[in-house]
């Protein structure tokens, strides 16, 4: 091919100069991006290559379903806990276990704390250096930086002296010649647009956010004992409540613990509203053109499974604080129903992935999937020695499978959630989105872009910080009313289980829709499969040639200097990739296959 149009409406041209970015850094896991640029350095073709797999599903086979959460939690240590949550929900669904109201609230609290933490760390530590020139901060006036800070926020760390100290610290670092994580950065790149003062302010907040983020996750540590990778429990939560009686001080949840999480939630909300959101708006105002670049699938197809049940054991949209649904072809007036159990809705395809299906290229629903590792490079792959210079997207080129919803490539993540909540009339989300667009003087369609994605994540971070306080108050109220139950042990013993069962558990991970499908037989896991957010977003082409969200979003993006791929990092980081693992592997006995990819 030189030029083709995909069925989902994108024009690809691979005739221009080919550039590879590998590793894509400031993400979780291993990802490679290749693009072709035209003579004006505009991206005309994009190839997303997932370059790792770990094989967790065959490992799960034959294990106790109550242990599964601990295994799958290790899929990702950045969005820690999301796989565990999906897993306990899948097992509870399969076995018909109802959890107590407090367990539901505590899970919501843990999950919201993760949202706040993860979005904050993504913005400052994974994404900010795409927009912020650290070296430029050295030429800022501390006084002018102080003025800028005070003009956008009541945050108290705003004196000229404070910014002078930060600047001296950066000066020292740069002056030492040992730049550490800032070494070989794209400093001075023409695509950086912030004035030195905004850069200095952002660098100060990079450091502050890194120091503060460790506080937020203490909420997970209170309920789960540690973070990363807190402890979960099928049937509820293990963090027992003892508010009034003997032994309360040695119990997991007592009045001191509640005070601790209340304090942290308050401080987190302050940090998000006084630092993150004002910075986001300030930075966005200097990069308005990035509300045009990087749309891809965003203005077409969005998917969310929904999350945060306000009522335990009720995952209808009337219970979910963030709703479930799909938007197709950009029609925000119609929210399609999404059913994770329907074999015709979610399917996965592998013609361009390093797996093969026996005898056919048809899509398979995760409950019925079968996958065999098939690491094969396309014939146009270019190699020098042991190094692959360019993959061949005409052949197999990724460990990521291609999931489709009713045949559509979909984008998932904070943007999808915010837009779907907006479309479904969620009042607080509408306020947040409309208010922000008004401040930036942008139309709703501006959301479908690189900075739209980044802004949606920030707004969702604020929403989560608000909701976190509310859920803590809900827990407090339940305890006050005399309800201290945290676990349902009626079906804890495997002898109470049916001989065969299957279930699905899902949640909205910070990066998007996450589903786990389990089959249980004779008290053991027979089959376990995960379809994770980055599988949707980093998807390679499918049999019809439809491209996924990363590949689509890169098209049309102009680059200043293709050898210094700052613009590609901006687009890809706006999705917050999590390439934790890809695990479609044949079962050890060569018999029934355990499926799953995890990306």
């Amino acid at each position, binding site marked *: 091919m030189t030029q083709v149009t995909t069925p989902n409406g994108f024009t690809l041209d691979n005739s221009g100069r080919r550039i*590879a*970015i*590998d*590793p*894509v*850094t*400031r993400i979780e896991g291993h990802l490679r991006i290749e693009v072709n640029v035209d003579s004006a350095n505009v991206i005309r073709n994009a190839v997303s290559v997932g370059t790792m*797999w*770990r*094989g*967790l599903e065959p*490992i799960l086979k034959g294990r106790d379903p109550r242990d599964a959460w*601990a*295994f799958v939690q*290790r*899929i*990702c*240590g*950045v969005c*820690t806990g999301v796989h565990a949550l999906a897993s306990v929900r899948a097992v509870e669904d399969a076995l018909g276990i109802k959890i107590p109201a407090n367990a539901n609230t505590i899970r919501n609290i843990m999950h919201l704390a993760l949202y706040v933490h993860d979005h904050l760390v993504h913005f400052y*530590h*994974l994404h900010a250096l795409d927009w912020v020139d650290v070296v430029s901060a050295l030429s800022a006036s501390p006084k002018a930086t102080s003025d800028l800070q005070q003009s956008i926020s009541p945050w108290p760390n705003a004196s000229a002296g404070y910014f002078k*100290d930060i600047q001296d*610290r950066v000066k*020292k*670092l740069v*002056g030492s*010649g*040992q*730049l*550490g*994580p800032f*070494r*070989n*950065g794209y400093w001075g790149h023409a695509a950086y647009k912030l004035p030195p003062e905004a850069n200095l302010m952002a660098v100060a907040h990079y450091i502050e956010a*890194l*120091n503060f*983020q*460790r506080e937020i996750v*203490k909420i997970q540590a*209170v309920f789960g*004992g*540690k973070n990363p*990778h807190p*402890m979960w*429990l099928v*049937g*509820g939560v293990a963090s*027992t409540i003892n508010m009034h*009686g003997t032994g309360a001080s*040695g*119990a997991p949840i007592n009045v001191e613990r509640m005070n601790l999480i209340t304090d942290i939630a308050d401080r987190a909300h302050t940090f998000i509203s006084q630092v993150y959101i004002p910075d986001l708006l300030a930075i966005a105002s200097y990069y308005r053109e990035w509300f045009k670049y990087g749309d891809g699938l965003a203005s077409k197809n969005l998917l969310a499974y929904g999350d945060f049940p306000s009522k335990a054991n009720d995952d209808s949209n009337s219970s979910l604080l963030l709703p479930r649904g799909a938007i197709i072809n950009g029609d925000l007036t119609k929210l399609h129903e999404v059913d994770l159990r329907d074999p015709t809705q979610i399917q996965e395809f592998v013609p361009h992935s390093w797996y093969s299906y026996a005898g056919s290229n048809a899509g398979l629903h995760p409950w019925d999937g079968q996958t065999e*590792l098939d*690491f094969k490079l396309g014939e146009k792959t270019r190699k020098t020695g*042991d190094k692959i*210079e360019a993959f061949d997207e005409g052949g197999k080129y990724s460990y990521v499978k291609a999931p489709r919803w009713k045949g559509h490539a979909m984008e998932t993540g904070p943007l999808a959630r915010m837009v779907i909540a907006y479309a479904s009339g969620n009042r607080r989300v509408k306020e947040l989105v409309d208010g922000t667009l008004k401040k930036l003087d942008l139309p709703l369609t501006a959301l479908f872009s690189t900075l739209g994605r980044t802004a949606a994540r920030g707004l969702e971070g604020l929403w989560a910080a608000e909701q976190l306080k509310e859920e803590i108050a809900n827990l407090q109220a339940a305890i006050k009313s005399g309800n*201290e139950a*945290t676990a349902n*042990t009626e079906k804890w013993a495997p002898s109470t289980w049916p001989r065969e069962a299957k279930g699905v558990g899902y949640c909205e991970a910070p990066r998007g829709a996450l589903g786990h499908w389990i089959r249980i037989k004779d008290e053991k896991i027979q089959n376990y499969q995960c379809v994770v957010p980055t599988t949707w977003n980093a998807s390679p082409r499918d049999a019809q040639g439809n491209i996924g969200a990363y590949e689509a979003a890169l098209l049309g993006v102009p680059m200043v200097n293709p050898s210094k791929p700052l613009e590609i990092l901006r687009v890809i980081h706006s999705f917050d990739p999590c390439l934790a*693992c890809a695990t479609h592997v044949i079962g050890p006995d060569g018999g029934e296959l355990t499926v799953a990819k995890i990306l």
Partner: protein
Amino acid sequence: MGGKTTFYEVVRQRGISRRDFLGFCAMTATYLGLGPDGAGILAHAMQTKPRIPVLWLHGLECTCCSESFLRSGHPLATDIVMSMISLDYDDTIMAAAGDQAEAIISDIIRDYRGAYILAVEGNIPLANDGMACIVGGRPFKHQFDEAAKHAKAIIAWGTCASSGCVQAAKPNPTKATPVHKLVQHVPVINVPGCPPIAEVMTGVISYILTYDRMPELDNQLRPKMFYSQRVHDKCYRRAHFDAGQFVEQWDDEGARQGWCLYKMGCRGPTTYNACASIGWNENTSFPIKSGHGCIGCSEEGFWDRGPFYERLPDMHQWGVESNADKVAAIGAAALGVAVTAQLGATVVQRVFRKRKPEEQAEHKEPTE
């Protein structure tokens, strides 16, 4: 290399008083168990040493080790990264990507041969010519080999790098292999845990920088200062174990009283880690304190020692001749609950006395 920034200079620049700095040294020295002179030695080192380059590579992993490291409260991760070491390569946080990132590795190997620390998070898949983890278009194994060969020392972060962890659980489809099995002639420190405790990670680094030597290691290459005692030894619920007061099911009265989780499968008695002493997230909690048993995540092969909710003496795979169900059954019938617990304790102790030599032999063999 230009000017040499010391840790002390940078904290002073940030307005931290000398008094606070010395207080920090004293606290860190106490955690490290450095004895009465420790604080002084630490303070001296932090005021005089330039920053050592660190390459932090990622193999098959989940990035929980990096995340844990960033949670460190003393020292703060920002202080370590900006002041104590020069973290020149870490794909999780570094500004550069692609060619600019790859160049750093070759530059450091060239400029600091034998003088940089290699930190490895995750492990190395050997199946399928190592193509289960491709970095820069090449198998991760190749990048790892080059960086390992010329390192001064290697820190294997977490259970993945130390002993394999989840992707090496049976049947280990990618043939994920821990660091120490692929390295010769360069000292390796294993810092296990899934993930390791943040202050253990930063404590290991501070110790190496302060004393300019490796911490004393046990036969599994773990720093003895953090991994020589069981979670059970220091558990705040230990008195309930000794008194025979156990949680019998989730959310029962014993659970609300903070009784011992041994019967719920707690692996505290077989897990060598500092969770019960140093604690997690600046001593906010640790799993047992939050009501869930330890799953033994710092122990080699712990994934294959489940189910996690089955109590320890049922575990036959360690060569235990008598399992505690038998002991417990006799005890329960004849002696009642409290005595059962004591018998259980005796059995556990015996298991551990027996286990040590077997452990040593076991760790010389590569895992599947």
